[in-house]
């Protein structure tokens, strides 16, 4: 990177918030994906004004700018593959406003999801999208990939809660959206930014809709001797007019991985459904009874609990599936490939069966779990990452998995985004995306090479050497 740019960055941001050592650049080159690349410099802005000046400078010199929150992205969104300026947004971590009576809050992008909910809980409110990484991820990152999680079936995804954004585009700082719950006053560019993965602009402030916390929650854990029966159970719950606050599925590989890694008490089964109902006490009781009736004939066993400790344990087990798979077998680790496809709800059992067939064909292990209630599945590919042949096999398997997904009427990503790892399977018209990108970012400085711009093999910039 040109010295002139570095000198100017020191004029914008104090030196204790600029990192240039090789060790720091190396550490910042990872997110939670299979990719790694080093930025040229890391800058940690404290204000919208600083971000604006940095982006302006980068645009002037045509240098890439990549925003990053906690680095929990699973598809390489925060990996600076062409170097450039990496913006560590965690320095902008203020909760600026909480307006309970108006149902919104205003936050900076570096606020940790769990901390926002801690603050809102004091008022009996919450920000409902519940990503598995919620204890550590940032709101900015959630918006950038339109994150959601297990409660999306009832509460929706991050996009449904973004009322307004302040965004720094290469040409300047702008605002879209409002503090009102309804908005029909022009292009809703704030919604376009949700899921844009930093390829258009940098989010510097977000106005988010909030919801009252439910009075009570209860959980049912149903075990099945056949994954198809579990899938039928899901379809029956939805068709029965139920709207649980979570409806999760785990296949046998995932059940075993969690039991092994986390010592959590789960039944031995081919598939588990974890179903949460929330609301007023009476509604919860009624909901759980109705679900019990629906699943009665299909499930082998059903456990109900409203005990906080057991519910926390069960959710801990569910959230821990992803990393626990890393401990599933000797010499095998869980790598983030084909990680969050969405299919029509009724197609889930077919998808899981097909994924297992593909895994067998290529001699790899694929664990499947996810948000069955909204059709969003997660698969994890387990391979020995030190063997190049394994990556080749995995890439082929991933291609076949996505072929099945699209044949079933699904899409490549429900909540993790595209980045590099899912770039060949991006959804929608590429030319339109390119036109939008060019209009906003003509010099292609905003997180270049991601999403529709990545045209090569996904086994690239591997973090595993």
């Amino acid at each position: 990177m040109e010295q002139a740019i570095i000198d100017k960055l020191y004029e914008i941001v104090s030196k204790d918030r600029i990192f240039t050592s090789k060790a720091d650049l190396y550490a910042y080159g990872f997110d939670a994906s299979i990719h790694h690349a080093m930025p040229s410099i890391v800058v940690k802005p404290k204000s919208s004004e600083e971000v604006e000046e940095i982006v302006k400078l980068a645009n002037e010199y045509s240098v890439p700018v990549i925003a990053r929150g906690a680095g929990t992205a699973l598809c390489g969104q925060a990996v600076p593959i062409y170097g450039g300026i990496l913006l560590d947004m965690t320095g902008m971590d203020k909760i600026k406003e909480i307006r309970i009576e108006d149902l919104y809050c205003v936050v900076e992008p570096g606020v940790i999801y769990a901390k926002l909910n801690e603050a809102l809980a004091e008022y009996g409110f919450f920000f409902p999208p519940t990503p598995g990484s919620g204890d550590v991820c940032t709101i900015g990152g959630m918006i950038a990939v339109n994150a959601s999680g297990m409660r999306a079936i009832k509460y929706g995804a991050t996009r449904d809660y973004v009322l307004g954004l302040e965004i720094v585009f290469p040409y300047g700082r702008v605002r879209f959206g409002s503090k009102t719950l309804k908005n029909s006053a022009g292009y809703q560019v704030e919604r376009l930014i949700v899921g844009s993965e930093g390829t258009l602009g940098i989010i510097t402030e977000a106005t988010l809709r909030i919801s009252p916390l439910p009075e009570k929650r209860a959980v049912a854990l149903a075990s099945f001797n056949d994954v198809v029966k579990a899938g039928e159970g899901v379809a029956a719950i939805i068709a029965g007019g139920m709207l649980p606050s979570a409806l999760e599925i785990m296949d046998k590989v995932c059940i075993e991985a969690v039991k092994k890694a986390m010592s959590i008490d789960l039944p031995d089964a081919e598939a588990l459904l974890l179903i949460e109902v929330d609301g007023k006490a009476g509604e919860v009781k009624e909901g759980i009874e109705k679900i019990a009736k629906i699943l009665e004939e299909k499930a082998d066993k059903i456990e109900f609990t409203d005990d906080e400790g057991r519910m926390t344990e069960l959710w801990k087990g569910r959230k821990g599936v992803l990393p626990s798979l890393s401990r599933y077998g000797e010499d095998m680790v869980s790598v983030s490939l084909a990680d969050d496809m969405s299919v029509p709800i009724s197609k889930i059992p077919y998808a899981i069966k097909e994924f297992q067939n593909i895994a067998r064909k290529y001699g790899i292990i694929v664990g499947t779990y996810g948000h069955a209630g909204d059709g969003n599945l997660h698969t994890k590919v387990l391979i020995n990452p030190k063997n190049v042949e394994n990556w080749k096999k995995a890439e082929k398997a991933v291609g076949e998995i996505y072929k099945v997904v699209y044949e079933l009427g699904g899409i490549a990503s429900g909540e993790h985004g595209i980045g590099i790892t899912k770039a060949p399977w991006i959804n929608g018209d590429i030319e339109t995306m390119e036109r939008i990108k060019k209009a906003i970012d003509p010099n292609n400085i905003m997180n270049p090479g991601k999403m529709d711009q990545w045209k090569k093999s996904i086994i690239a910039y591997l973090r595993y050497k």
Partner: protein
Amino acid sequence: MLEKYHDEILSCTGCGFCKKSYYAYKFPQKESDFPKGKIMISYGLLTGELEEDMEAVKAIQKCTLCGRCEEDCPSLIKIADVIKATRNDLQLMLPEHEKIFHNFKEKGNILGEENFFKKGGSIVFFMGCLTNREMKDVVISLFDKLGIDVTIIGGCCGYPIEKIGRKTEDKIKKELEEREIEKLVMACPNGMLALSEFSSLHISQFVLSLGVDFRRNDKNYIYHDSAFLGRYLGIYEEPRQIIKRIGNLLEFDENGKMARQCGGEIEFRMAFPDEAKEIAEYLIKEAKEKNATIVTASSHCYSHLKEYGDVIDILQLIEENIK
């Protein structure tokens, strides 16, 4: 050494859950301040993508090895072991670590102080550097009150030196091997870990085994689990049992296996005083809110925490209240 942990590092999914407990502090300002960053830097050093320099050394040394982050890691990565193995392969040393290493070699005491020795019977108390500085008189008085003619051996166990990745001599081990020891007692978990082959007892375990009585008071005491006494040695209950016999035992919100460290490990706080201060003040604040005196069971913890708040070590608590 680090090569042994190659697969362990690859098993890290990079999920970042290890950052959770760090969010309580202001000092983690960049990726390499978090456990994930250190694991990745270890990987870079292992693969040769990263060359060792002082910044890499600083990142790898800025960790107490307390293991709290491992409790949040769903992949069960042995984070502290990976970091320790990385340190073993480092060539460069932080200036503060050079100082304690020099003291260790020259004086057999990482603080560069005179070690204390006392001849006595077959009950042996290993003093260690921090206990020697903070609690020497308390130890002598306690054994007097217990009516035990204790043998006291001073010197550095070498554990802080091992923690920074340097090899130690077996001077103390040889000294202990030459003695007839009925029971080896220590007040410092560092020593218990370094000299683990001698099956030592923590002072709280030893005193409990004697069945002594204590004077009771109405004070609130909040017990701070030392990471090394707790997570490493599995000793959680004995100090609590003693506290309960003396006063009211309160707990930190995160305690036992989930306890937060205090930043008191000497090699850490010498190199990173500001970080160590912030970590200590986090515990002090909670203790104040609960209107309680912190009880430590490690001389490292005591000598650090006492700088910032109301603290008593289990040695003092026993010595003051034994009947």
